[in-house]
C-alpha cells in the first residue's frame, strides 16, 4: 500500500524572515511606548515640549548646558530664543531606558519656561534651574541675558534686590549684585550667581533669589507683588563690551515675567 504524505507547505524562508522582522518591529515599538516615547536628543524633546505648550513656533537653541544629576540621570538646560517674540529655558533629563532617551513619559518632569522678549534690546531672566529649584540653592543661580549685540564679547550685569516691606525681614535692606560673563554662546550671556552660604540661608537676600527665578514660572508669579519692593521684578543693568574693552551698549530692563 502506497503511503500518502500530506505535509503543509512551509512558508518560504524570505516570508518567515519578513514575519520575524515585523514581529521585532512591533515589539520594539511597544518597548518605545512603555518607555514613555523618549526623544532621541534634548532638541527633539524641546520640540515636543513646544507642541505640548501649544506654541507653533520652533525655538533656536542658543545654549545647552549640563546640570546636576537627577535620579542618576544626566540633565540639560537649554536657553532658547523664538525670534523677537519670546525666549525661554528648557530643562530635560535623560530618563529613557538604558539612558538613551530624553524626556520620557510624554515629557513628565521636563520644564519649559517662556517669557516675552523685551523691547529694550536685551531680555534678562533668572532660571528656575533643572531640576526645578534644585539646581541652584546650594550652588549657583543662572541668569541669562538674551542680547542683540553680536560684537559684545563680555557683559556685566548689575541689579538690586529690594524686599517688599510686607516680608517683615529685619535685614530688609536692598542688596546689590554685580556679575560678569564672557561670551560663550551666540545670542545669550549666562551669568552665574553664587547663592549665600548655609549660615545665610535665612537672610532676605537668599529669600529673594528664588522668587527672582520664579518670575518666569506662570504658576508662581503671584508671589512677586508681595516679595519685591514696588510689587514688580527688579530692574537689571547690562553693559556690553567689545574685544577692545570698550562699552558698546548699556541697557536697563526689568527681569522677564512668564508669557501667559
Amino acid at each position, binding site marked *: 500500500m*502506497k*503511503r500518502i*504524505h500530506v505535509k503543509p507547505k512551509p512558508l518560504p*524562508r*524570505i516570508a*518567515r*524572515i519578513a514575519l*520575524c*522582522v515585523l*514581529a*521585532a518591529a512591533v*515589539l*520594539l515599538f*511597544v*518597548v518605545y*511606548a*512603555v*518607555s*514613555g*516615547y523618549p526623544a532621541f536628543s534634548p532638541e527633539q524633546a524641546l520640540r*515636543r515640549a513646544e*507642541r*505640548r*505648550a*501649544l*506654541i*507653533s*513656533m520652533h525655538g533656536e537653541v542658543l545654549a545647552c548646558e549640563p546640570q546636576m544629576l537627577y535620579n542618576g540621570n544626566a540633565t540639560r538646560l537649554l536657553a532658547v530664543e*523664538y525670534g523677537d*517674540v*519670546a525666549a525661554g529655558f528648557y530643562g530635560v533629563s535623560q530618563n529613557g*531606558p538604558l539612558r538613551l532617551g530624553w524626556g520620557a513619559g*510624554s*515629557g513628565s518632569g521636563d520644564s519649559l519656561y*517662556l517669557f516675552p522678549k523685551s523691547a529694550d534690546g536685551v531680555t534678562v531672566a533668572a532660571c528656575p534651574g533643572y531640576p526645578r529649584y534644585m539646581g541652584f540653592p546650594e550652588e549657583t543661580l543662572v541668569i541669562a541675558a538674551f542680547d542683540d549685540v553680536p560684537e559684545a564679547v563680555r557683559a556685566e550685569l548689575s541689579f538690586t534686590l529690594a524686599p517688599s516691606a510686607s516680608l517683615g525681614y529685619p535685614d530688609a535692606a536692598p542688596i546689590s549684585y554685580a556679575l560678569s560673563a564672557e561670551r560663550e554662546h551666540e545670542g545669550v550671556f549666562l551669568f552665574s550667581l553664587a547663592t549665600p552660604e548655609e549660615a545665610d540661608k535665612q537672610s532676605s537676600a537668599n529669600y529673594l533669589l528664588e522668587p527672582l527665578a520664579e518670575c518666569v514660572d*506662570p*504658576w508662581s*508669579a*503671584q508671589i512677586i*507683588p508681595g516679595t519685591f519692593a514696588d*510689587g514688580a521684578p527688579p530692574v537689571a543693568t547690562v553693559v556690553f563690551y567689545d574685544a577692545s574693552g570698550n562699552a558698546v551698549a548699556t541697557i536697563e530692563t526689568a527681569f522677564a*515675567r*512668564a*508669557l*501667559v
Partner: protein
Amino acid sequence: MKSNRLAFQSWCSRAAAHIRFKADRPDVEQELLEHMEDHFDALVQEGLTAQEAERQTLAAMGDADETGAALAKVHKPYLGWLYVAAKWLVALSAVLLLMVSCSTGMDFSGYGFPEPFQGLATESDETYRREITYLYPNCTDKCNGYTFSLPVVTHRRGTWVEKQENMPQTYEAVYFVLEAAHPLPWAGSPDGLRESIYAVDSEGNLYPSRCQKVSHSDYEEREVCGNPVGRTLLRYRFQMWISTLDPDAEWVELRYGRMGCSFALRIDLTEGGDAA
C-alpha cells in the same frame, strides 16, 4: 529493511553535508530519505527483491556528492543566517520589553476618563437652590495638531437669600470637560493651555486664566481654571470651570492664543440642554 534504511541514510547524509547552512541539513536529509523510501516501496510492490530494489533506488539517485553540490547551489546560506538573526532579534526584543516593563512599572493609573463633575453637589435644600443644565456643544477647533472639543458642559446656577439683607443672591458657573485629541500617541498632554486659556462672554466680560490673573495683579473672582483628569492613547481630558459667570451672558467663548497657535470654542448657554 534496516540495511536499506542505513544505506539510504548514509547516502542522504553525504549529499546533505554539501549544504553550507547546517540547520537546513536535517530537513533536506529527511526529504531525501522519504523520497528514496517511496521509490524503494514502489519497486518492491512491482515484485523486486529488497536487495534489488535498494540497488536500483541508489542507482536512480545517482552520485551523492553530485546531488549534494546541486543542493548546495539551491540552499544559499545567507538566507538561513538572516532567518536565525531575525529570530534572535524577536527574542531580544521580547527580553527588552520584559526588562523595560519591569523597570517602568507599567503605570496605567492616569489612563481612562473618570465620570465628569464628580464631587460637585447637585441637590437643593431649603436655603440653597441649585439649577443644573447639561449642554453638549457641537464645536471643535484645531491648534498645533490637536483637535479640541467640549464633550460635556454643565451650566450651574445657585440661588439663596442673604439673611441679613433678605436679598436673593445668585451665583453662576460653567463646568466643562475639554478634550484634546492628537493622531500621534507620543504627542503628550497639551498642558500649555491651562496657562493661557481664557474666556469672554456675550456681555463683553473677560474671564482670564489663573496665570493671567496673577500676572496682571487681578484678584477678581472671574477666572478659567482646571486640571487634567485622564487620558487614553490619543486623547487627553481636562475638567475646567469658568467661575462667577455673568447671569446675563447668552454665550461664553473659550479662547487660546499664544505664539502662533490659537483656537476658540463657543458654549451657547441659551441652548436647551438636559436638566439634572
